[in-house]
């Protein structure tokens, strides 16, 4: 019994210790961001790695999610004779929630795990230590550009996801199921508010992008420098950032769509 309590205590303390380390890490990395803006090429390479390489999965998933929304939405709305509102359903679901959240989860799985593995490997092969010994701060050179790139890429990816999803819903609803095209777009346009829905979605994706990238980079930097350590760190990145995204989504939704 006592050992269980002790274990809990130790786990709790360890959690807070990590949280603290993560924040100190973030602080010093953010200090390196202005310098990172100066080294545009580093930043661009990272935006390529994080954003461009995620495009395929985002576009394909977005399209499929949009199509499913169109299908399921139609099935439900048709019972109330309200299938003309399909456009509203698809657009609001995507722009407010699914776009930012699903894109963030996919980003965490694809780009987040890649980031963790890359930085973890650099740590394991002593590249980070070598940089330190060469008087180059790895936080400024390696971490800051990646952090910035993630924050910039995420909202773009979420917007692409939502836009593609709407057209996916259009393809199924109007193209396959016969919903009136004019009603689809007109009802959608009158109900989706730019400020309340779209901009809030963009804000969400900024927050998610920051969180996911922070967790990914930190886990990589903090990893135990063995192959087992890296594999555990990558898993932790995906799990923790997914949980963080979902949790933050609830908080943000409550604040925004009250």
């Amino acid at each position, binding site marked *: 019994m006592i050992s269980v309590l002790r274990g809990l205590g130790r786990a709790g303390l360890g959690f807070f210790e990590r949280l603290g380390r993560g924040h100190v890490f973030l602080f010093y990395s953010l200090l390196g961001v202005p310098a990172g803006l100066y080294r545009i090429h580093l930043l661009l390479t990272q935006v390529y790695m994080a954003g461009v390489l995620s495009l395929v999965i985002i576009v394909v998933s977005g399209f499929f999610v949009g199509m499913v929304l169109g299908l399921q939405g139609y099935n439900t709305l048709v019972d109330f004779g309200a299938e003309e509102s399909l456009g509203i359903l698809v657009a609001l679901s995507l722009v407010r929630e699914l776009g930012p959240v699903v894109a963030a989860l996919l980003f965490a799985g694809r780009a987040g795990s890649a980031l963790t593995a890359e930085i973890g490997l*650099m740590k394991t*092969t*002593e*590249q980070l*230590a*070598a*940089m*330190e*010994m*060469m*008087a*180059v*701060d790895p936080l400024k*050179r390696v971490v800051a550009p990646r952090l910035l790139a993630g924050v910039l890429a995420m909202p773009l990816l979420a917007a692409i996801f939502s836009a593609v999803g709407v057209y996916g819903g259009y393809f199924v609803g109007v193209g396959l199921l016969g919903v009136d095209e004019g009603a689809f777009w007109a009802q959608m346009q009158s109900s989706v508010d730019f400020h309340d829905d779209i901009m809030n979605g963009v804000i969400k994706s900024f927050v998610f992008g920051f969180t996911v990238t922070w967790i990914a980079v930190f886990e990589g930097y903090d990893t135990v420098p063995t192959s087992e350590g890296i594999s555990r760190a990558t898993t932790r990145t995906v799990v923790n950032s997914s949980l963080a995204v979902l949790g933050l989504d609830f908080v943000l939704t409550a604040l925004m769509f009250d």
Partner: protein
Amino acid sequence: MDTNRGSEEPLVTIRGLSFSRGARKIFDEVDMDIARGKITAIMGPSGCGKTTLLSLIGGQLRPDAGSVRVDGLEVPQLSRRELLQLRKRMGMLFQSGALLTDLSVFENVAFPLREHTGLPVPIIRDLVLMKLEAVGLRGARDLMPSELSGGMARRVALARAIALDPMMIMYDEPFAGQDPISMGVLLRLIHLMNEAMGVTSIVVSHDVKETASIADYVYVLAEGKIVGQGTPEELKKSPSKWVRQFMDALPDGPVHFHYPAPAYMEDLLSGEDR
């Protein structure tokens, strides 16, 4: 550029160094002097903390107690910026080379030059080629680290370590796992750096024969203390049991063959798994 010759002050002085990792005492009040312009070797059985010593000198770790002075500066007390400045004057060769895998050989060697000097591109190019020529790899400049053999990677790492003409170079197990030819090459290079550039060299190794052939002074570490020191000739004649076991490659001695375990017969007969 620092001149190492003609100065009698040791470059690195370590006094009363104590450092523990968890429960293990890695260094127990160790005193050491690294002479300028000379090759000092640090040897000892595996796990005696030789690499940790280099991290302590380089400021990556802080000692629990004691002083580590490099060129008159007290390393553990330096501010971040001062440490950064000091590190520009130190070169370190890691065991695996630790080349940046996303950069080519040329870019790896150019890295410290690009980061720390504002030199124009043509001058950087010339400097890089000169360093690569010194290690014999000028023709390999466009290869990626993944295409290099272990020995070649280490040579590139050496070229990178001397890019800023440091006052000292630390070699972490440079001979580990190398074939005789590569070893010969590395030995020659270390000797060359020392002779031609007057660079103070600290070689951490457990390859007795190779290290003894180039070292000017040797420290033998075991169980957190210095168990022997002197020139290679002095050590060969040293009566200390530790030094003898190490230099003569004896399997059993102060460093025991058997890991501590309960009595043999009892263990076999008890039939339990502990």
